C-alpha cells in the first residue's frame, strides 16, 4: 500500500458560515470562511467543533465538497436521524454563525493533482461528498458513478450536470437509481452491479485508481465487484459512512 504524509494545521480555527445551500430535503452544503485556510487535497475532511453556551462541545468529521482554494471551503452534511451535530448543521445553522474546524485531514482517500492516473469515482448516497471535491478539481480523466435511491436523494445534481458539460477535463457522470428512477429514464431502478461497473470502468488492464465511498454495505459490494472484474485491490481506495449517530 502506498504511503503519504499529510500536512499539519491541527489547531482549531474559527470559521464563519458564509452561506448555506440545500442539496436535498435532508442534506445541506455550508460555505465556511476561514482566515488563513490554505486549501486541501480533494478527498480530505475536516473536524468540526460546536460549542454550546455552557461550554459543552461536540465534534464530528465532515468531508470537504468544494475544490481546493484559499480562505473558504464547503462541507456537505447529511442529517442523521437522532444525530447531535448533523441536524444542527442542516436545519439550524445560518450565515453569520460561528463554529470551529481543524484540518484538512486524511492522507489516504485523496486524489493528488500530481497523480496522472484516470480516476473512477463511485459514490453511494452522501458518500459522493468527498468525490465531489475530486470532480470539481479534476485535471485528469475522471468518471463518476453515483448511486442513490431516487433523484430526490441525489446531491449536487445541477453541479454534476455542469461538471459533465463544461469542466476543463470532462467528467463523465453516470447515475444509478436503486428504488425510483426519473420519469423517462431508460432503465428500471436497479442496484449497482458488475454489468454497470464494467460499462463505466476503464478496461481492466488500464492503470486506474478507484475511489469508493458510501455506506458500509455499498462499499463492500462495490469493492468486491471491482476486484471481481479485474481491478488491482491495491488501487482501490475506500471510505465508509456507517450509520454512526452523528
Amino acid at each position, binding site marked *: 500500500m502506498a504511503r503519504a504524509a*499529510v500536512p499539519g494545521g491541527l489547531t482549531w480555527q474559527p470559521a464563519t458560515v458564509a452561506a448555506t445551500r440545500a442539496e436535498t430535503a435532508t442534506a445541506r452544503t455550508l460555505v465556511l470562511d476561514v482566515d488563513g485556510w490554505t486549501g486541501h487535497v480533494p478527498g480530505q475532511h475536516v473536524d468540526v467543533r*460546536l460549542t454550546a453556551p455552557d461550554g459543552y462541545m461536540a465534534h464530528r468529521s465532515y468531508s470537504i465538497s468544494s475544490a481546493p482554494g484559499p480562505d473558504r471551503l464547503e462541507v456537505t452534511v447529511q442529517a442523521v436521524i437522532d444525530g447531535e451535530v448533523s441536524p444542527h448543521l442542516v436545519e*439550524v445553522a445560518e450565515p453569520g454563525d460561528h463554529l470551529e474546524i481543524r484540518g484538512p485531514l486524511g492522507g*489516504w482517500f485523496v486524489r493528488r493533482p500530481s497523480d496522472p492516473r484516470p480516476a473512477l469515482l463511485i459514490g453511494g448516497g452522501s458518500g459522493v461528498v468527498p468525490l465531489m471535491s475530486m470532480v470539481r478539481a479534476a485535471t485528469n480523466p475522471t468518471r463518476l458513478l453515483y448511486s442513490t435511491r431516487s433523484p430526490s436523494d441525489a446531491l449536487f445534481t445541477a453541479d454534476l450536470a455542469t461538471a459533465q458539460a463544461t469542466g476543463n477535463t470532462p467528467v463523465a457522470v453516470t447515475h444509478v437509481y436503486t428504488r425510483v428512477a426519473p420519469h423517462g429514464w431508460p432503465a428500471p431502478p436497479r442496484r449497482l452491479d458488475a454489468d454497470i461497473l464494467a460499462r463505466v470502468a476503464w478496461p481492466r488492464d488500464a492503470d486506474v485508481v478507484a475511489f469508493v465511498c458510501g455506506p458500509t454495505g455499498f462499499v463492500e459490494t462495490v469493492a468486491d465487484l471491482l476486484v471481481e472484474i479485474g481491478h488491482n485491490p491495491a488501487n482501490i481506495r475506500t471510505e465508509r459512512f456507517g450509520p454512526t449517530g452523528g
Partner: protein
Amino acid sequence: MAVITRGFGGRRRDDADLPPGQYRTDDFPVLSAGPTPRIGLDEWELAVVTETGERSTWSWAEFTALPADEPTVDIHCVTRWSKFGTSWRGVSVDTLLADVDTAAEYVVAHSYGGYTTNIPLEGLLDGQAWVAYEFDGAPLAPVHGGPARLLVPHLYFWKSAKWLRALELRLDDEPGFWETAGYHNDGDPWREQRYLED
C-alpha cells in the same frame, strides 16, 4: 477564547467512560482503506516473528485450540465513535508470546491485504490485547476483520488490525499504514492522540 455556536445545545449523555472528543454509538461502523480480503480458514495462518527471524505459526485449528478469553471492552475509533461493552472471544497476546524468546520493544501487526500498524510491545501484554475471532458470540465477519483481528481496546481502533496475519517483534519502532498517513504514532484515546501533531 471559546467560539460559541448560536443555537447549539448538544445532547448530554452520561459519558464518564467516553474519551475526549468521542461520541457514543450502538452501531458497529466500519473503517478500512480498501477492499475486504477474504481468507479461507484452510489457508489462514498466524505467525509471530521475532527480531532474530524466528517464526512461530498456528494453523486455524491450532490457534482456536489455544486457551481463549472472553473480554467485554469499550472500543474507540479515531473517527470519533465509541462503542461500549463489546463482547469478543480471542487468544491473549500473552498466550501467543509465552514461549517466544525476544528482547523486542515494538510490534508491527501485519494484515492479509497489506495493512500494518505499530504498537509498543508493553501495550499488548498483561491482558491488554487479544487476537479475536468471535464477536457477540458469532464468528468474526470479514468486514470486521475476520477470520481473526488484533483487539487492543485501550488504543484507537485502527491499532486493532483486521485480518491479522503476523505479529512482527522489533527492536525499533516502525510506523504503520495510518501512522505514516498523518495519524498519531501512539493513538491513546484518553490523550486524544488522533493525528500526527496532536
